[in-house]
């Protein structure tokens, strides 16, 4: 590729001898690391053999991308997101350094991948941990200053102030609004005609007028028919006064409901109530402790964790779900492994004809997208119309309730998951069985050993050791098998006595999802707390995984 460029660098150099800096670099580098890692190839910095044109092209591209990131930093900063801006700035700096400096050459290969993983795994994990120490939920979605602004933006209509009588004029199917001031009979007419079907607030500009518009006036009943829409109309007089509907056919000026009081309190202008923010509960509260919506997000320390571990409405379901999650993943892994190994032993047994066909058909469940196969089983196990109950009913006269009996539902889930999961184990076992030397079996055959003896004395011990890390990984996967439960049962049936509601067949991860996205409370903080418990579990599994796998690279595995 750059061979020509290389020789253009110096005509006296043959292609076999790299340029001086490259030599130097090699000399330094090889002494340190080359011996330690026999697979490592000698390092040559790219620029050493690159033509100046290419080098400048590369710098140009890196510069352009860096500029783009800097632009994003500016956007973030201007939108009042200093933390995002700072992180992006660090990222842009790292990017520019790694792609221009020769010392950081190796990092060019890993930087994009690592950055992606930092952003989409590590950062969300840390963020989730953070949320679990707050009260972030449907009732506490906004932060303190946003909540305060919300209150300060509220308005009320004063009794006995100026009032304006309303009349409506039809313009096609739209309406123009006219107001007559109670004090001086001044007439105001809206600039535009509107259909008055709005469900959100709209603002109309009013103009002083001498005569009513030359349109037919709507009957007085129209004000009743359109009262819903008129409630959401804000009329603005030429002097800027904002008017809201005060009676059926009357508009009146509105005033801010809350004014800042002493310290961080707010004073109600209508009845004099004083509210102050409570940073423990995350609400604005009156003196006697009544909380006003909306609340705001505050840190609550370990409250969520204490709640999960002590509140009976949560701890009992949590414990039950945890037990079910553990047994679900263990049973799945064991059953799938046994099934996979048995089938693999059968299929790779030489006297069997048509082994390839068997093999292809046996991995069909793995090939079919799982969102389809899970739904098929949902149909097959349907309580009233499902094929399985139809067969059971005609054979044995029974019709098990797969959807409402918790134990039957769990049985069904295990059955479906084994159907989905055995092909993976089958594929793995097939590969490993092929690597067991045949002469072991021949030797044992000569000694008169039988089929079962062979299996338990030769096959199983030889296969179990290399399979162990993969079995642990499969356990971890099933521990968080969200999609299966979500598509098959949605966690149902609901556990009696659980508050907030929990499902009998929820895995921990489905329980967290239910807390965050189902039901009214949308308790993101509680969901994050459950997620934190799962992080700990996954951490333990990962530790075990590391123990049984030797992470070694750069050495040839023969």
């Amino acid at each position, binding site marked *: *590729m750059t061979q020509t460029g290389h020789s253009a660098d110096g005509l006296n150099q043959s*292609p*076999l001898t790299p340029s001086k800096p490259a030599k130097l670099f090699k000399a330094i580098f090889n002494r340190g*690391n080359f011996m330690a*890692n026999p*697979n*490592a*190839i000698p390092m*040559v*910095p*790219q620029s050493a*053999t690159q033509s100046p044109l290419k080098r400048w092209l590369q710098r140009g591209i890196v510069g352009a991308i860096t500029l783009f990131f800097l632009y*994003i930093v500016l956007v*973030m900063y201007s939108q009042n*997101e200093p933390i995002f801006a700072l992180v992006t700035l660090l990222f842009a700096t790292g990017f520019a350094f790694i792609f221009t400096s020769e010392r950081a050459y*190796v*990092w060019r*290969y*890993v930087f994009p*991948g*690592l950055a*992606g*993983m930092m952003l*989409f*795994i590590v*950062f969300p994990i840390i963020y*989730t941990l953070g*949320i679990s120490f707050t009260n972030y939920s449907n009732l506490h979605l906004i932060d303190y200053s946003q909540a305060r602004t919300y209150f300060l933006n509220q308005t009320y209509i004063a009794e006995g102030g100026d009032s304006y009588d309303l009349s409506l004029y039809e313009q096609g199917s739209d309406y123009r609004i006219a107001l007559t001031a109670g004090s001086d009979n001044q007439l105001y007419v809206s600039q535009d005609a509107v259909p008055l079907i709005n469900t959100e607030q709209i603002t109309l500009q009013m103009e002083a007028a001498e005569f009513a518009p030359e349109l037919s006036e709507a009957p007085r009943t129209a004000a009743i028919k359109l009262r819903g829409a008129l409630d959401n109309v804000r009329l603005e007089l030429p002097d800027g006064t904002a008017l809201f509907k005060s009676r059926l056919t009357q508009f009146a000026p509105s005033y801010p409901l809350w004014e800042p009081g002493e310290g961080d309190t707010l004073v109600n202008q209508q009845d004099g109530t004083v509210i102050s923010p409570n940073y423990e509960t995350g609400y604005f509260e009156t003196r006697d402790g009544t909380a006003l919506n909306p609340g705001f997000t505050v840190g609550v320390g370990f409250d969520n964790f204490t709640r999960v571990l002590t509140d009976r409405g949560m701890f009992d379901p949590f414990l039950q779900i945890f037990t079910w999650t553990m047994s679900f993943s263990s049973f799945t892994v064991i059953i799938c492994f046994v099934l996979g190994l048995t089938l693999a032993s059968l299929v790779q047994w030489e006297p069997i004809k048509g082994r390839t066909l068997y093999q*292809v*058909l*046996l*991995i069909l469940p793995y*090939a079919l*997208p*799982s*969102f389809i196969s899970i*739904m098929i089983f949902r*149909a*097959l196990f349907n309580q009233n119309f499902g*094929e399985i109950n139809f067969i059971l009913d005609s054979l044995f006269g029974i019709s098990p309730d797969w959807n409402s009996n918790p134990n039957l539902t769990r049985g069904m889930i295990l059955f479906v998951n084994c159907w989905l999961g055995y092909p993976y184990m089958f594929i*793995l076992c097939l*590969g*490993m069985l092929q690597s067991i030397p045949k002469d072991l079996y021949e030797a044992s055959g000569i000694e008169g050993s039988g089929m079962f003896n062979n299996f338990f004395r030769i096959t199983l011990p030889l296969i179990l050791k290399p399979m162990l890390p*993969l079995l642990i*990984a*499969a356990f971890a996967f099933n521990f968080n098998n969200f*999609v299966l439960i*979500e598509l098959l049962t949605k966690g149902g049936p609901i556990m009696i006595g659980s508050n907030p509601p929990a499902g009998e067949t929820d895995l921990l*991860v489905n329980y967290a999802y239910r807390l*965050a996205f189902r039901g009214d409370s949308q308790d993101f903080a509680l*969901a*994050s707390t459950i997620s934190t418990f*799962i992080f700990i579990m*996954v951490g333990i599994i990962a530790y075990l*995984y590391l123990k049984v*796998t030797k*992470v070694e*690279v*750069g*050495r040839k595995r023969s």
Partner: protein
Amino acid sequence: MVKTKNHTARVLGAHIVLVAFLAFVVYPLAYLVSVSFRTGHTLVDDIVPSNPSLEHWYLAFEQPYVGMNPQKKDIDGVDQTTFNNSLGTVTFDANGNWTLDAAPEFEPEFYPLRSYLYIGFLNSVGDSVSSTEPVRIVLDEAAKADDYGKDVIFVAPDGQVSGRLAIPDRPEGATRTTVQYGKAYVSKPVFPVLSWLMNTIKVAGLSGLLILLLSTTSAYAFGRLPFRGKSGLLKTLLVVQMFPNTLFLVALYLLFDKLGGFVDFLALNTHSALIIGYMGGLALNIFMVIGYFDTIDPAMEESAAIDGATPWQTFYKILLPLSVPILAVVFILSFITFVNEFPLASVIISDLDKMTLAVGAQQYIQDQNQLWGDFAAAAVLSGVPITIVFLIAQKFLVGGLTAGGVKG
């Protein structure tokens, strides 16, 4: 090995076990195909549909389907009866004379509309005892009259046809005489299945390519280039890849919500955000590629380096061409993973026509309205290509999976 009598029995036994197990594996798939050809959304029927219909397949291909619903009217002791079969109004009298005044309910784009008429005798339970040969009626634009044979009665949208149905004597066992007719209906596609399929291929394909690019370069650095902190970083990757994104969906949602405010292509409800979000699943693939690189003798790369090749050149021109099998495995496995991915896609994408198949397919089965037939047709349509790709590639995959890791 010595063959015994026992041996033959064992082979036979193994075959029986395998075939029995395969029946259990294949049945659900056959069932899915069967449901897609059934009339209506019924789950109870024979595995070969008793009343097959292509309606669900028309809808899966986003075509409107013109069909007929069977209807009946009792004519015992009735002088005259009228009914509407959506082609127009039919007047039927006790002698078997009928007249159809065409007044089609549907637009010309759905022509031809079809219907039929016959006399059916029912027993007290409502089961058919016997019936006469049906008269078939077709309604189409007048210009197309010659396209239809003598076996059907043609009627133009503003025309009128009439005829006579012979009413035979009531057979034994029958208690009711009915006139049976087909009421034409048009069902229009509700869901953009083909767009979903295109979205899925686009998202999964691009994500797979990006994963391929990032995982091979990273694996090259980890496997071949020396740098500080490598082993620690590898262990971190191994731990990190065990955390599925389902655990921090809330955080991901909020993250994209924020990022979307700064850069358009990371906004919620865009495919690009979904693709970028999928890059979190990179670590597993890095390990697979490292595992494969380890089996390649570095001697060639070393000699290339001695000849003055840069690390990028050795990677691009020597290592990559030697690693084609693992590249195929990584691409196919990530492609399949992303086709199947449900949680992140369901959180990020909310527009019906931007959905991927995994999310879209769930739209058929709501609590109140379960369109199993439409689901089955869409599922077969989308599942078959993916399954075929998988089965073709399975030889590669067997080796790749054993070398590398787990299905994510």
